[in-house]
């Protein structure tokens, strides 16, 4: 079996956020690669897409979607896929990813990454749709494990088994979001280490890191703060198993200055070493419940 589907290890990447456009273009920071939210650029013909074209000429880029809705029982949205493929033709991403989720049915879009019951029916359904998407895009789809806030009584498979069978059946890759594993495990009472051990490591093309909000009885995947120690430790374990997949830090709320964002990413280098035993200093705070991320909406104000 070919590791990472033959896709390269891009190194350490950051999410491309509009707040940092000018900084990146002017300073050309030493970031290995950028991940873009596909929907932020697919239908934009203004400044964001123009800037993305410039950045894609200078850095490797990966397209990460939030609206494919691979698990929905609505028909696949081929207008969406057409627009996605057009953007990929321009940007030439190293790969295209989206989430194991559904976003709506009956043509409604909740704009949330909704969880699926994990059973034979949903597995067959998702695999059929992944095959269709891969055929249309003419490339493997990289599927991310979502943060979940509920589990279902009609689930018969643990998520790691679902992902393993899904990759075997379709040839798709995995985007292992370590923070999502932690968030879901906390919310749904499973062991995150068992999860990390159970996924098909040779299919992990990319890993995500992010900060989350602990609300006491549950955790929200907010992408609005530093990565916490438990997630770093999980990452340390997963990175060894996943054969040096590309790593990306997501930050979508309370977005800090570029250098702060970048320095948080660079912490991951320590945890790539299996022997590292340190820990980050953490500030714990209880604040108003935030919304889970990522979102696909640009602030237009800065371009006025």
């Amino acid at each position, binding site marked *: 079996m070919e590791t990472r589907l033959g896709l390269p290890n891009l190194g350490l990447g950051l999410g491309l956020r509009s707040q940092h456009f000018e900084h990146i273009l002017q300073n050309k920071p030493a970031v290995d690669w950028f991940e873009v939210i596909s929907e932020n650029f697919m239908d934009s*013909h203004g400044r964001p897409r123009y800037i993305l074209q410039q950045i894609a000429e200078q850095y490797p880029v990966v397209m990460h979607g939030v609206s494919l809705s691979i698990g929905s029982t609505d028909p696949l949205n081929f207008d969406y896929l057409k627009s996605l493929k057009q953007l990929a033709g321009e940007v030439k991403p190293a790969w295209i990813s989206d989430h194991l989720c559904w976003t709506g049915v009956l043509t409604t879009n*909740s704009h949330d990454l*909704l969880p699926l019951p994990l059973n034979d029916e949903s597995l067959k359904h998702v695999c059929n749709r992944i095959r269709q998407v891969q055929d249309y895009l003419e490339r493997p789809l990289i599927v991310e494990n979502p943060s979940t806030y509920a*589990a279902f*009584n*009609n689930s018969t498979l643990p998520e790691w088994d679902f992902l393993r069978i899904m990759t075997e059946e379709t040839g798709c890759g995995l985007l292992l979001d370590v923070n999502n594993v932690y968030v879901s495990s906390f919310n749904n009472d499973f062991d995150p280490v068992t999860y990390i051990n159970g996924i098909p490591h040779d299919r992990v093309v990319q890993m995500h890191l992010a900060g989350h909000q602990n609300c006491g009885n*549950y955790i929200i995947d907010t992408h609005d703060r530093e990565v916490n120690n438990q997630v770093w430790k999980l990452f340390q374990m997963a990175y060894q198993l996943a054969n040096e997949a590309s790593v990306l830090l997501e930050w979508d709320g309370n977005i800090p200055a570029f250098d702060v964002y970048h320095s948080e990413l660079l912490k991951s280098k320590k945890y790539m070493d299996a022997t590292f035993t340190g820990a980050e200093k953490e500030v714990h705070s209880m604040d108003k419940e935030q919304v*889970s991320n990522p979102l696909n909406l640009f602030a237009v104000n800065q*371009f006025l």
Partner: protein
Amino acid sequence: MHKTVKIPLKDFQQWMQQLLLDPYQQTGVNPNDLLSNATNAASIEDVICHSEKLSAQEHLGIYQRSYIARLRNCMSQQFSALEYALGEAIFCAFADDYLASRPSHHYNLSFLGAHFADYLENNRPDAEETVKEDWIDFIIELARFEYAIGVLFDTKAEEDYQLATFETPEEQLKIVPIFSLFTFKFPVRKYYSEFKNGKNPALPLEKESYSVVLRHQFKLSIYDLHKEQYDFLSLLKEHNDIATAKDLFQTHYTKNDMQFEPIWSNWKERWIAANFFRV
């Protein structure tokens, strides 16, 4: 004994979506009716697992709160000046009702507020009153303007054009591709700009105003216009020819006995400097 729960995926998704979009069952649809094809599942507790820390309803509640909070947040970003004008509580009440009546059907959140101004128009609080309240008209105008700004920001247009200079022969002047004229009953542009510049504008009194929003090298600019300038630029946009616009404009304004050439010369100079014209 543990019961085996089976729910067709399609039914499950319609059930869950109904609970997200209509958590208080205001549409009269009972979500549990959507589980009629399920085996051993007739309630939230039958479908969603409880955990050590949360009940099934509490797990669902995270998604229910997140759904409306996320979309409210997007509406707030799309209509930030409007939210300031209305105040957060009233804005949220309008936004929630709008989202309930028109759930999103597009993957792109930029379109979320596409019908918000129409919604406000159709649901104005003084709908039953004979005498209409001014501030509501302002709110509707502001909503239309804020959404239009977002559309103009993203619109596909030719960008690789040459701007006119002071030396460009007049007959060669063309307005730039993204160039949108606005007429308001209220000073909407002024209010909008003051808010965006961190000021705290008060709700304005009725006063006709005219503006143009144009885009050059992907950056939007907004300019105030006089009525005459608005009329002239409207003619120019319609006919795309300076001479025709000047002729029609002078015909319209002959009663005013005004000497147009010196005025036009002044306008032309300012507008070329402001990137109104391309070659």
